[in-house]
Structure formats: structure tokens, C-alpha cells
């Protein structure tokens, strides 16, 4: 196994893994998750150094993920939240706060 992760050689002779675009798109999540075995991760990095469309695909997955993070998610109704905070205030009074008697 050749250990040359930073050197890009498009015409490798099978000395290490080579990744095609169709394989890359199925590895993209494991790549983003850091879950690929090191030789495969190097092969993916090598492929990305050479392949602009796959860089674009990776970027689009990242942008999709980022956009998902902007979706509004339902939360507690304001009245419920306010009630919870009131209960918190009652059961956990600030020291020196006259509202609650000492135990």
C-alpha cells in the first residue's frame, strides 16, 4: 500500500484504491461523518482533488444539511413556557428573594 495521500496521480496502477464518481456519491455521508477507513478516505480526497462535479455534489449535500437546520421546528406554546418558568421561580427562588419562605 502506497502512503502518498497528498500526491495526486490520476493514472494509479491499482496500488491504492481509486474512487469513481458513482462510488463517491455513495461514500459521501461516511466521508462527512469521518467513518471511512483511512485508505478509502485518501482515495476520496484524491478523487475530489481531480473532480469538480463531485466537489459540487459534496457542496450540495452540505448546503442541503445546512438548509435543514433552518427549518422551523415546533416548540412549546408561549403560555406553557411561561408557566414552566413560573414553577421554576417558585421552587428555585433566588437566594434572598422574599417570595419563598425558608424550608
Amino acid at each position, binding site marked *: 500500500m502506497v502512503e502518498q495521500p497528498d500526491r495526486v496521480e490520476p493514472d494509479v496502477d491499482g496500488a491504492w484504491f481509486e474512487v469513481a464518481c458513482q462510488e463517491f456519491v455513495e461514500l459521501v455521508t461516511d466521508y462527512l461523518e469521518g467513518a471511512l477507513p483511512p485508505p478509502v478516505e485518501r482515495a476520496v480526497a484524491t478523487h475530489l482533488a481531480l473532480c469538480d462535479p463531485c466537489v459540487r455534489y459534496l457542496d450540495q*449535500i452540505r*448546503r*442541503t444539511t*445546512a438548509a435543514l437546520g*433552518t427549518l422551523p421546528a415546533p416548540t412549546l406554546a408561549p403560555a406553557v413556557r411561561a408557566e414552566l418558568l413560573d414553577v421554576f421561580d417558585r421552587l428555585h427562588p433566588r437566594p434572598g428573594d422574599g417570595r419563598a419562605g425558608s424550608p
Partner: protein
Amino acid sequence: MRDRPEQEGAAPTAVLAAAEPGGSAAQVEVLARLGNGDRAAFAEIVDAWSPVMLRVALLYVSTQATAEEVVQETWLAVIRSLGRFEGRSSLKTWVFRILENRSRTRGRQEARTVPWSSAFPSDDGETGAEPTVDPRRFRGTDDAYPCHWTPDGMPVAWQPPPEDAVMAAEVRRQLRAALDELPVRQRTVVELRDVHGLTSEEVCERLGISPANQRILLHRGRARLRAGLDEVYRGRSREGSTGG
């Protein structure tokens, strides 16, 4: 719509500290703040976690209304038991354990007893055998560049990008619709990871699935959502090119 944020000048650190391991200095500090009635710290944690807690409750109960009740009950239990919390785990782990116990109980009362992980044994393609990108976008194996993108199949630039104000509303609409069409296990993992920001470890723990399974579900879900957005952009460019 939330009512006014309870910031009161506090730095937004309580949420981070509440996820720190049991016994850590950050945890000791946040527990002291809560014990001393730091309403802003408690509000910060409630605001940060309630959306994902509602989502997790829905793994066990069938309606949004019941999920809201369970989350409310959980927070009340947290407030009442805070003084007895020994800090062996992170505050977050403890809160979610209470949530899951209560959700499970409510789910049983609803007779929705099947645990999540076996409820939907493997909706389509969970094994990962199916390609996530249409094979017609790639050259054949006998091509000079086997399995590389075809000129028409390769990803096109997304312009303007999804986060651009011009696109944001349409992108969110498309993502919401596409999420709702995903197989339930894929949708659940993508929502917990990407919408609610849980870590992969947290998702595996919540759902009782292996890291490898979590990655497969995430992979298939994200790929479908990307493809849906890509259709929006390709549609836009088609409209643009036929408009002249």
C-alpha cells in the same frame, strides 16, 4: 411564535454546560446557577431543547398534543427533581432519560407499544443496496471514463445558493415536503441530526440503532433531499432557457 426571550444579560452558556459530562466543572456551575434560581439559564435550556424533545416524544406517542403534554410533564419533573440530581451523567442525558421514560409510559397507555426500532423493520432501501443517485447520470462501465458523470448528469451549480434570501422560502418548502415523503426511519434520522442538531451518538442512543445503520439512513435521506432541491434548480434553469 415565542414570547420575549429571557436573556437578562446572561451569556448563552447554560445549554452548552448542560451537555457537559457529569462531574465536569461546567456542569457543577450550571447546576449551581439553576439551584440558585437563575431563571435565564433555565429558560435558555427550555428554549434550546423543547423542539427536539417534542420530536423525540413523537417517537413514542401519536399526536403533537400528547407530545406537548409529555414535554411539559418532563420539565415539571426536572424542576422538582433538580435538587436530587446527583450529576452522574450530563444534565442533558438525565433530562432525555426522564423524557423517554414518560414518553414510553404514555405510548403504552395509547397502546402504541411497539418500540421505534422494530416498528418499521426496514423501509425501502435501508440495506444500502439501491443507488442514491440515478444511474443514468453516470457513464457506463465500458466508457473511457467508467462510472463518471455524464455531461448532462453532472451536478449543476445551485444559483442563487439555498441560503440566499431569494431562495430560502422555496428551499424550506421543498425540504419540508420532501422530508414528509421520506421513509419514516430515514426521515427520523435526518430530522434529529440535521433539523434538530443531535450528534450521531445521540441519535443512535435515542433510536437504539447502530452507528452504521444511522449513517445508512442519514445517507439515503440526505441524498433524496439533495435530489429534490436539485430538481428545483434544474427546473429554474429550464424555465430560464425557454423563456427567451
